């Protein structure tokens, strides 16, 4: 599924525009927040007045209003919220029908993980992103079931992050907000206290811990001292009553001490509401570091089972993400979740014949290039 497209700008705007798509012409008084997508050449110029921007579905639009002639627009639906860049780039920010919408806080990050799926950008986009996200929240009509705040590292927005969370809390108090963060900033109690003081009614942080050994964790995130900050940060979050999920990406660097990490999480981060053990995504930095990262998931099933045993038998809530059932040991199936966002979820050719496909989470779309050698169709077993 596409979330981006590119066209040619008519040069009538020099700052990004956020608006809600409509494929239907609207009355003049309802056009203010709307990006009209349609055959601009077929409509009289006055019919194009008052829209925030226009995307021409046919020829080039060269009128007065900010406009883009999009090459590819089939994925854009009425109600989608998009950002139009003066360069002609159109990014979908929000799809009302999906439960996988994100608030992208910033592209910056203070870590540089070996397998980052969203490599950080060393430009200061923070002001622009804060205004884009506040506008996005303003434009969402119906309360989403859930939203994920991600990046980059959202806390690099500093206190401006709180403005975004406040806006979500005030407009959509029933929306569950999950924020992905490396947790390092929360080692500062005053910052954590301020987040807690927002009293968002349904908020949880997802924070990665990659090893019980600080050297290995710091190596994975490519930042010296990160382990200490993250663990102290998680402790601070708990101290202030904030809910935390621990995320572990499984690869050749994290697998050898996975069971020890499970023990560590139980002993030190017992309060974590959820532990997600996640398969590696072959995107972003990962392909570049694949030599150090790759291990066939079929080859780490016993380490994975040990870790799940340690956590789950002690009452901790564990899930396995991004693993296919044909690779996963049968005893672990019940921990497997269909976790891959709809827009990047695929199945391979081998999956066509699989009788467990409906229960299986499938692959990230970029797994077609690299996946376990054990992928095969399964025959459904009758329950004994």
């Amino acid at each position: 599924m596409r979330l981006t497209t590119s066209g040619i700008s008519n040069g009538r705007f020099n700052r990004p525009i956020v608006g809600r798509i409509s494929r239907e012409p609207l009355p003049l008084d309802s056009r203010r927040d709307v990006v009209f997508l349609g055959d601009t050449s077929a409509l009289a110029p006055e019919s194009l007045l008052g829209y925030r921007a226009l995307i021409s579905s046919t020829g080039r639009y060269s009128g007065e209003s900010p406009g883009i002639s999009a090459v590819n627009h089939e994925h854009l639906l009425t109600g989608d919220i998009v950002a139009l860049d003066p360069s002609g780039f159109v990014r979908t920010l929000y799809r009302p029908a999906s439960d996988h919408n994100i608030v992208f806080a910033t592209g910056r990050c203070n870590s540089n993980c070996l397998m980052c799926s969203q490599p950080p950008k060393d430009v200061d986009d923070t002001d622009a992103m804060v205004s884009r996200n506040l506008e996005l929240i303003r434009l969402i009509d119906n309360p989403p079931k859930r939203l994920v705040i991600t990046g980059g590292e959202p806390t690099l927005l500093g206190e401006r992050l709180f403005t975004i969370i406040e806006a979500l809390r005030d407009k959509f108090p029933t929306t569950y907000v999950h924020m992905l963060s490396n947790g390092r900033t929360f080692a500062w109690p005053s910052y954590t206290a301020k987040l807690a003081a927002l009293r968002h009614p349904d908020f949880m942080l997802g924070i990665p811990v990659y090893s019980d050994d600080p050297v290995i964790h710091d190596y994975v995130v490519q930042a010296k001292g990160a382990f200490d900050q993250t663990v102290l940060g998680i402790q601070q979050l708990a101290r202030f009553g904030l809910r935390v999920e621990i995320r572990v990406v499984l690869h050749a660097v994290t697998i050898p001490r996975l069971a020890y990490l499970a023990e560590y999480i139980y002993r030190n981060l017992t309060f974590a509401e959820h532990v997600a053990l996640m398969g590696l995504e072959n995107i972003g930095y990962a392909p570049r570091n694949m030599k150090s990262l790759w291990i066939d998931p079929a080859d780490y099933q016993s380490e994975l089972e040990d870790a799940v045993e340690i956590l789950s038998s002690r009452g901790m809530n564990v899930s396995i993400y991004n693993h296919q059932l044909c690779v996963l040991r049968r005893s672990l199936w019940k921990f497997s979740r269909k976790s891959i966002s709809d827009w990047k979820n695929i199945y391979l050719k081998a999956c066509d014949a699989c009788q467990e496909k409906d229960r299986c989470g499938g692959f990230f779309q970029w797994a077609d290039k690299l996946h376990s050698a054990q992928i095969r169709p399964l025959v459904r077993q009758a329950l004994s």
Partner: protein
Amino acid sequence: MARSFYPAEAYRDSDPRYQLLPFRFLRLDDKQEVLVNEVGEFVVGPIGTARTLITKTLTSGSDLYSTFKARQFLTDGSSSQLIDLLATKYRTKHSFIDGFTKLHIFVVTLRCDHSCQYCQVSRQTADKSAFDMNPATAAKAVDLMMESPAKEITLELQGGEPLLAFDVIRLVVGLAEAKAKALKKDLRIVVTTNLANVTNDILLYLKEHHIRVSTSLDGPAAIHNANRPRPENNSYELTTENIAKARRILGNDQVAALMTTTHVSLEHVEDIIDEYVRQEFHSIFLRPISPYGFAVRTKRKTGYEIDAFLKFYKTGLAHILNLNRQGYDLAEVYAKILLTKILTPYGTGYVDLQSPAGAGINVLVYNYDGDVYATDEARMLAEMGDFTFRLGNVHRNSRKDLFTSDEFLNLAATACNQSLTACSDCAFQAFCGSDPVYNHSTQHDMFGHRPSSDFCKRNMEVIKHLFQLITSGDKEVMRIFLAWIQNVGLADINKMAPSCV
């Protein structure tokens, strides 16, 4: 603008030296030793592991090095900020001290209809006035109990046989409930009774006031009746009948039983356990006899050497594990207490195995005559003329008096195993406790002498035994233990953990 990546070595401290954090160690058998840190986290390794760690010859980057570092046995330059974390874990382990005294035992009467060999204190008499708690004493004792800063108060009604003084129970419960409500405290009440005199009316009263029942069941009829004589020799029949009756009215989970091991019990641990299964109990506490009260006087008749008890205990534990494997959930309470300390970040509320000792700090006993003791055992000593641990009297003393009395201060000075000879460097310190009352009673010295202490020997042996089971690699045993700790059944753990169903 691509960023560069650095190898793992770039994140390792260039200085290979490390510092030790507090820990203790002990040889488990001729192959293995165990190292335990200040908060009960442990590493089991081959003999020589501690030496390698202490002589600082561990190789930075080795698996063992990482494990010791992660479990906070050592610290080095690549992670030095986490002492706070150790402090947090220390607080969590010792959170049983929060709120101070939580368990308050009321001896509502000394009278009893049984004449048990091992009983510490009871009297067989019809004279109510001499051995029942009077209303003025009850009122003062409730006031003192509720002065405890604890938010959660447990009131244990005990005797003698407390149901013989049901009027006192009603009075104490009424006063305690009113006061708890006024002070917004949570009140839990339990009555320790042999159930021989229980009636439907009494049970309905217990139900109305959410009072749980703790009774005594020493095993099958032959053992139970031998240990717990009544004139009619029918204690077993009465007890089991009334357990059933109590369960019908109160619910199964509201009725618990305790057993005491006498020399009669020693050869019959499996029969005793099977009796608990027959009575559909899901926990059993394999308890040695306490060296107090009449038990000391009758030692020749009831007592035994600690080695005999340990054999009894280990045989029993093996039988209990087998029952669990076969599908009957049965927890051994002492193992459960120790395993909670060993396998979880938490401590337990069990007052007889804590440091600081539970005495006074986590438990107070209000005798029928208003005297206040640090533990139930302290009261039993007093019945034999030894008032070392009488902290005061509800009529004459305030809470402040009790806790500034010489008796309490002497106790407090010996309450921490961290500062007792031989305990101070014992690997099991974090799992064990201090029991000055026991030391005083058996060794005439509150500090005690560990090499000749049965308390020490029992705990050392039981904890070692549990370590052997934990490290045996038997996954099912581990799941059984984890079920006990979490108060669930093995089937529940199997549902929670990896399995194909």
